[in-house]
């Protein structure tokens, strides 16, 4: 790997090639009203066994980044540029068939709302068995045993009976466990978790996060954790990428991001989420709204809402400045 000039490009860690290296990923939605680019040149990397957070407000393109990485977007959305190198192969170059073998095998994903991501007409067991049969050379009966085993792994009580139930008979937390069970049946090396706890209440949230952390510890599964909840990030993640309007604006270790955030957007994000009395997704303290993706904002995309905006922010796009601690794309970086 060579070091990249893209925003947030993979900072090299000596001697270890990252498990996932996304470089300059671009995803576009085409319609007759024009083309919008919800993911615009995003780069990030994840090392084996690492939990990496991708944070930002809703609409900043973080979910679209995850879906694009999995190649789960379909017309009129399409991945239009960049590289997604996973375990040495560029996923964007694979055939549909090869990509299918990846999904649910080495590379798995869980989602935001466990209510809607399970097929309501299929028994829990059948949905897990489906995943097992696709990726492991076992017979159906063996797969059924493995399915119960997977439920046990995600600490579902009485897994045999839960396996025979339908999704609507389970609580939200249980359903998310089932989705996790489906995702980890084939021991993926990377799990992409798209806001996996957002739809759950707080106690269940903690249980699910503990479970994910445990899976990382015991199976060494790396995770891309997409969230807007900085509290969870602080507690569970190793490194952080901050996204704004389709771009990565800052990256760094959890410690650095929380101790000395460099980008004004990150600072605003921290202020709004960590001050007592505000809800995790309450962004009121950042003035204005994130720009609609159609907007073509000149200069830095954050400048209309930035408290410390400079003149050049309105016209020139800031480059990503990188040092040992991380990277940020802000003109203040150079001035400071």
């Amino acid at each position: 790997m060579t070091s990249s000039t893209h925003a947030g490009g993979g900072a090299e860690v000596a001697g270890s090639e990252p498990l996932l290296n996304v470089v300059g990923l671009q995803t576009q939605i085409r319609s007759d009203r024009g083309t919008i680019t919800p993911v615009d040149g995003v780069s990030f990397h994840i090392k084996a066994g690492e939990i990496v957070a991708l944070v930002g407000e809703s609409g900043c393109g973080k979910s679209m980044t995850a879906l694009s990485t999995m190649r789960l977007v379909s017309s009129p959305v399409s991945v239009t540029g960049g590289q997604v190198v996973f375990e040495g192969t560029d996923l964007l170059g694979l055939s549909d068939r090869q990509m299918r073998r990846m999904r649910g095998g080495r590379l798995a994903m869980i989602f935001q709302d466990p209510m809607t991501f399970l097929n309501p007409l299929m028994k829990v067991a059948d949905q897990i068995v489906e995943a097992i049969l696709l990726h492991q050379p076992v017979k159906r009966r063996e797969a059924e045993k493995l399915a119960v085993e997977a439920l046990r792994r995600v600490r579902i009580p009485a897994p045999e009976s839960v396996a025979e139930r339908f999704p609507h008979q389970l609580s939200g937390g249980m359903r998310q466990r089932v989705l996790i069970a489906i995702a980890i049946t084939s021991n993926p090396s990377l799990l992409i978790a798209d806001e996996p706890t957002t739809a759950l209440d707080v106690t269940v949230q903690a249980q699910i996060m503990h479970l994910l952390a445990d899976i990382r510890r015991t199976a060494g599964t790396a995770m891309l954790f997409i969230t807007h909840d900085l509290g969870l990030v602080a507690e569970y993640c190793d490194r952080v990428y901050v996204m704004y309007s389709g771009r990565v604006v800052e990256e760094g270790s959890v410690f650095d991001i929380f101790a000395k955030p460099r980008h004004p957007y990150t600072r605003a994000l921290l202020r709004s989420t960590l001050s007592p009395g505000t809800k995790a997704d309450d962004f009121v303290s950042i003035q204005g709204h994130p720009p609609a993706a159609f907007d073509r904002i000149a200069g830095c995309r954050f400048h209309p809402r930035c408290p410390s905006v400079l003149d050049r922010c309105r016209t020139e796009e800031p480059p990503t400045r990188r040092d040992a601690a991380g990277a940020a794309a802000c003109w203040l970086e150079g001035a400071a």
Partner: protein
Amino acid sequence: MLSYFARRVWQGFLVIVVIICLNFFLIHAAPGDPVNALIGTMAPTPEYMEQVRREYGLDEPLLWQFLRYAARMAQFDFGESLRFRQPVIDIILARLPATLLLMGTALVLSSTVGIVLAAAAAKFRDSWVDRVLTTTSIVGFAMPAFWLGQLMLIVFALNLNWLPAQGMYSLRAPSDGFGRVLDILRHLILPALTYSVYHLALIYRLTRVKMHEALAQDYIIAARARGVAEHRVVYVHALRNAILPVVTIIGLNFGFMLAGSVLVETVFAWPGLGRLFYEAISARDYPVLMGIFTLVSGMVVIANILTDMLYAVIDPRVVYG
């Protein structure tokens, strides 16, 4: 859910009551003597008219007449056919099997083909296959079924002479065994096809919409994310969910389908309930008309209840009791 089911049954009961009231109302509100509605305008003898008058209690107070009438209906006594001088219920039951054969064939044909085509069209959304099928279905939807029957008759029976034009049996065909079955099948093809087209259009359009809705659901993305192949995503995950509302519509459209069978049977002189209805109209055979109306309503009510039960079987989310 049990209460919902009970409500359906109660509603069905009310419908039957309303139907009996309507019949009663028609007999009495129609211009002329009610007895004419019961035995026709060319009554054979004054004695017979008197007999019917007594039987229906036409000289008694209206409420009493109504109760008497309702009691007869409850026992499936729909009176006597003016044309055949036989109990209406016997005539109807004799004609029912032919209608059920025609409807059953057409329903199986149109549902299977419609659902399969819609699923295929949904998989290849906005392709030329999708466009051709959808356009055809829109046209099929706008055609009067009996006109399509006339066209089929003109082309396949009268000009190409491939298939028989009228009825259910040929005179020359063997009267039993395999030959007879074959003969009936040959007669069945055109009416069943005609009858299928409208429902095919309906089922296709409905399934297509439901497929698009299903394919936009989150569990579809989740299935793809675990590596499920596209054909399985479409035909297993999406289709099963899309079919549920389609089943309901098919069940709830039962009355509509029976209406279609009246028209199609008339075109092809298929000796079923619909043809009987048509003949009764021409002969002003009011008891038969009312008998068929009542029986058909009862069938619709039962079909609605069965649909609910079937739904409960297919959809695990619905639990009665």
